């Protein structure tokens, strides 16, 4: 019981500690990066259960803000190799289990 309790506590700790957005890789300029990151956080929180909607929201907002042909991938496990326009890529983790990759390529 104690062990499970501890495990739960750990999990809670993990969730609490790992909830912040962690940028893994990006080559965006500062301003754009911050904006994109905030957008990703907003989208993921809004559609916590529906990654597709979150991705759609991010994509559409990015298209509006920074010009068309953005691509967004959100998931808990995936591998990718993408070609992106330089200074238009953001790869981040969020919420301890989500990976978000946003890039532009027309």
């Amino acid at each position, binding site marked *: 019981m104690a062990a499970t309790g501890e495990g739960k506590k750990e999990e809670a700790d993990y969730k609490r500690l790992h909830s912040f957005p962690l940028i893994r890789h990006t080559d965006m300029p500062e301003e754009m990066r911050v904006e994109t990151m905030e957008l990703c956080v907003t989208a993921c929180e809004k559609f916590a259960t529906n990654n597709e909607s979150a991705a759609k929201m991010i994509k559409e907002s990015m298209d509006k803000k920074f010009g068309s042909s953005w691509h967004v991938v959100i998931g808990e496990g995936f*591998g990718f190799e993408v070609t992106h326009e330089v200074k238009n890529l953001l790869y981040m983790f969020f919420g301890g289990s989500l990976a978000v990759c946003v890039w532009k390529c027309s």
Partner: protein
Amino acid sequence: MQDAFFCRGSNETVLFVQDKEDGMEHGDEWDEWSHGKTLTKPPDQLELTEAELNETFTRILTATNPHAPQNIVRYSFKKRSYKPISAVDQMAVHFVLEGNLLYKDSDEARRQMAKQGLPAVIFVVFGSACIGFTQATPGEDAAEMEEVEEEDRPDSAASKTGKKEQKLTNQINFCERASQTLNNPPRERNCQTEPPPRCNFSAIANQWEIYDAYVEELQKQEKNKEKQKAIPSKKDDEDDDRGKKKMILMETQTQSDDLCKMAKATKILERMVNQNIYGDLAIDFKYYEDCSDEFREQEGTLLPLWKFQCDKAKKLTVTALCWNKKYQDLFAAGMGSYDFSKQGRGVLVFYTLKNSSFPEYIYPTNCGIMCLDIHEQVSYLVAVGFYDGCVAVYNLKEDGQQPVYQSTAKTGKHTDPVWQVRWQNDDMDGNHNFYSVSSDGRVVSWTLVKNELVSTDIIKLTMEGVPHLSTASFDFHKQINHLFLVGTQEGKIHKCFKTYSSQYLETYDAHTLAVDAVKWNHFHPKVFISCSSDWTVKIWDHTINTPMFTFELYAAVGDVAWAPYSSTVFAAVTVNGKVHIFDLNVNKYEAICQQQVVAKKTKLTHIEFNLVHPLIIVGDDQGYITSFKLSPNLRKQPKVRQSSLSRLTDVMPMQI
């Protein structure tokens, strides 16, 4: 259709035929203007003689018809008798043609238009010809005929379908002109823009990767927190500035790290740029030989090449020059001042021949540099002697502008300017060590032990009654380690032994003024050279206390140097800006080259031969270092059979 106008002039009948092509026949009106009016003679034209042509006919045209009956009578019921009628119809009809004009709104016209598939709105006029005239003189053979022609004919309607409402033109003198201009040839022009740069990125996202990333990040954050904690705690211990300084230091370190990545690339680029700018000098250095040397028997010339200067060394005197033994293109120059009233800062610079515009290394010093030496084996160690009596050792591999070793008053520094430093072979413990000589009369050996300099007095120069002598230069024997020469400011040269510190082996009354340089020959073990401000250069055999050769140069001699390639060649610089090069093998009395290399006012202070290239560098009191290439006559190599040693022995005066 042709319109014919028959004109009977006074004496000539011509037929104007106007080629009136209608749309039916020619389709377009293109030719209409180009044909114009042609003059044609009918075949049946009367041929009249001149007299006939000049004959005048008088005709009166009246409105009465000659054929009209004049005797028409009618029965008048009023008068009950026949009466002639005076009013006779004078009109005569010659030709009648039924017209086929239709009113376009009429049923007939509509029907026709429908038949031809024309839209009803198109204006169509069916033309006809109707001629009527009054003939005044019935006997007239020529008739004036005028035909009123309608522009548009029914049969031309088909061709008009494409054209909408054409403007009716004046039939009399209408003419249409057109010209065709050259059409500009079409050209294609396009340009292509570069697509925005792209690059690839790939990664794998799964739960453990994400977890690891978060854990790593958290650890980093914790470390940062600890650091931040550590800094304020230090603040408590020490003063506030320290912590800030450390922060700044850390920042600058990271910044410099970023730049360091580019350092090598920028260095290469700088050298490339320099090679481009001074490409001709490099080619001269490598390939140019003075052809005129073949025609001069002995004399040679100096070809000026690069000139080295640096803003930080401006207005300073070059007080020392030394080639790096390992990297033959690198040399060190010490800057300071010989003028005792103008002492100040100094600078130690390292130049390479590959980059003449900016030094490889710069070490600014608070005190003027007087001498320097680069270690033969450990080529990054440089010993430097200062005007204030300090000696220091710089390590080129270390970052920073400070020397790695520096003597202090505690460790027995000189009390007067250090005139010469010279590296020695490592001692038995394997420590590097060097000797220094100063005008306080001491010759001191310095040993680099861990992180301090340990000094040992080798000899204190004394003379009867005088507590110490001021030394100006010294040189160690190339083969006999213990033997060295000391030149003094009084003009004497002492031969000393490291181990007998109390007395000299020999004293030469060499010069009447300070001995500026004394140097052993590179090849001959007994021969050395000395020079002085008393205008002379002397060559000695150390076993004999009178000079073998004395050369008068008519100006204070700043420095002499033996050539590394021949035992008989040496060079001297004088304060009047001249370089003198001697080859005893060629001429025992005069210089084989005597060249003014800088302005006369500029004093030359030092000269050094490059160890492998036929190149000398000359330093002056303006902070410039100039390099010269020796012409072939100046660098005659000794013949293989005859060794350098024997050659110099051969040229030695017999009286010795």
